[in-house]
């Protein structure tokens, strides 16, 4: 399957990555090769009646009591933030 540069740019946008033109071209050919290999191998297997496997621990719905526990202090939570204001994370405007 041919992957176009346009598709690569679209995926990069979804992934919130800014790629240079060189990167777009490099990833286009590398991803095409990897995807082709994967798709070809997977298509050899019939999975019509197979359920997806998402968790191998054997656990389902691991619940625990709803007991309040101390969390991290605000100072520790904020210690790695580059932009903060009055004890909050400062973010760019999301809505215009």
């Amino acid at each position, binding site marked *: 399957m041919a992957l176009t540069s346009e598709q690569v740019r679209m995926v990069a946008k979804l992934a919130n990555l800014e790629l240079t033109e060189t990167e777009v071209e490099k990833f286009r050919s590398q991803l095409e090769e990897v995807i082709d290999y994967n798709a070809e191998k997977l298509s050899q297997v019939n999975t019509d009646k197979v359920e*997806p496997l998402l968790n191998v621990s054997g656990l389902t719905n691991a619940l625990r009591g709803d007991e309040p526990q101390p969390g991290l202090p605000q100072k520790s939570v904020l210690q790695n933030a580059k932009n903060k204001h009055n004890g909050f994370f400062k973010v760019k405007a999301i809505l215009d």
Partner: protein
Amino acid sequence: MHTSFLTIKQIHEGLKKKDFSSVEVTKQALQQAEKADKDLGSFLTITGELALKQAQEADRLIANSKEICWLTGVPMGIKDVIVTQGVATTAASKILEDFLPPYSATVYENLLKVKAVMIGKLNCDEFAMGASTENSAYQKTKNPWDRTRVPGGSSGGSAAAVAAGLLPYALGTDTGGSIRQPASFCSVVGLKPTYGRVSRWGLIPMGNSLDQAGPLTQTVEDAAWVLNIIAGYDRQDATSVNKPLPDYSKNLGRSIKGKKFGIPKEYLGEGIDPQVKEIFLAATKKIEDLGGQLVEVSLPHSEQAIPVYYLVMASEVSTNLARYDGVRYGGTRDQFGPEAKRRIMLGTYSLSSGYYDAYYLKSTKVRRLIYNDFQEVFKKVDFVLGPTSPVLPFKFGEKIDNPLQMYLGDILTVPQNLAGVPAISLPAGFVGDLPVGLQITANHWEEEKMLQAAYNFEQATEWHKRKPE
């Protein structure tokens, strides 16, 4: 006193007999980390002051106790994708260059409880993505057996430091072979536990449904001891399982007479280096000499393991790495290295509308078939044997620009992560000076039995005694 290449057990006995103190051992380990590591490149951070403080605490405990844990006062290192409170943790990425974790991973907490001593944080591929440690944003780590070659990865720093005698043990993480393959490349022991056996709390995640932390050691007995301390249920990790924890070191000597060892016919086909195959077959002969019974088995979906792994893992990577938005911690997304970007792109693609069914969903279905293959095989045999890596340690730069070639090297280690079963790699021989590892896989929760088999093989061979110059 010279503590280089001493095992955990030997250091423990020295501490107990008061041949040396933890502070003395720690000072020597720090000195080695400072000096010998200049060329090797296994450490990203050396935690001198903290290590000496931890060693003093250990010495106080040793002075006041009749019995101490094997790990008390013994130096170790931790792969830099495991968070350590107040100690820089970078995941070998520029995006976390100045990150100081506000809390610690449970595995590190467990080691601190028994007064282990951390010498520093160890190099790896960026976010544990790679098989050569060349994807570290900071430095290359060399293979102690041949410094023109890679140590494997992604836990390359952990494996190299133990193999070079700088540390008696280190912690690594394994998503698709990242403990076992570097253990094989560096001729040390590396163990990936059953998914759910060891808490993932505080592991900077790569593939949440695949990741496990585990030990890299010089001997099987040492690996059993580290597992004793790091394993167990943790309420912070909802995928950790509340199951009784055996003493893994207790019955290591139990004979393997009559035990059945399956050799999947798919593991010795195309793509395996004939020299690796020869050493593997000699190792299986040794198992037979010890009373083990060799049985040919089949894992029919082995060929699909790489495609399933790279789609499942990359999909999990793309969602995991979405958290790096520069708001709460870390830098900006342009600081991701090429492999991180490549995997984010691959994962985003396979999760995106129109491709989800054909790629992500399809791969999770084939994952079940791989899981079922192992369940079928373990009805017939106790263990599955294989080489750990189909190839010998390769030269720097040899594969870095060919992702598909690099990915295919994981063929013998990813099936275990997809199925969630435990596996161990141990020294099994050399081609010239280049190590080859034997991989023993067991069914879920059978680490004890697996360690017994590994111990039997180790005690009957000399490979683990050979050290690099």
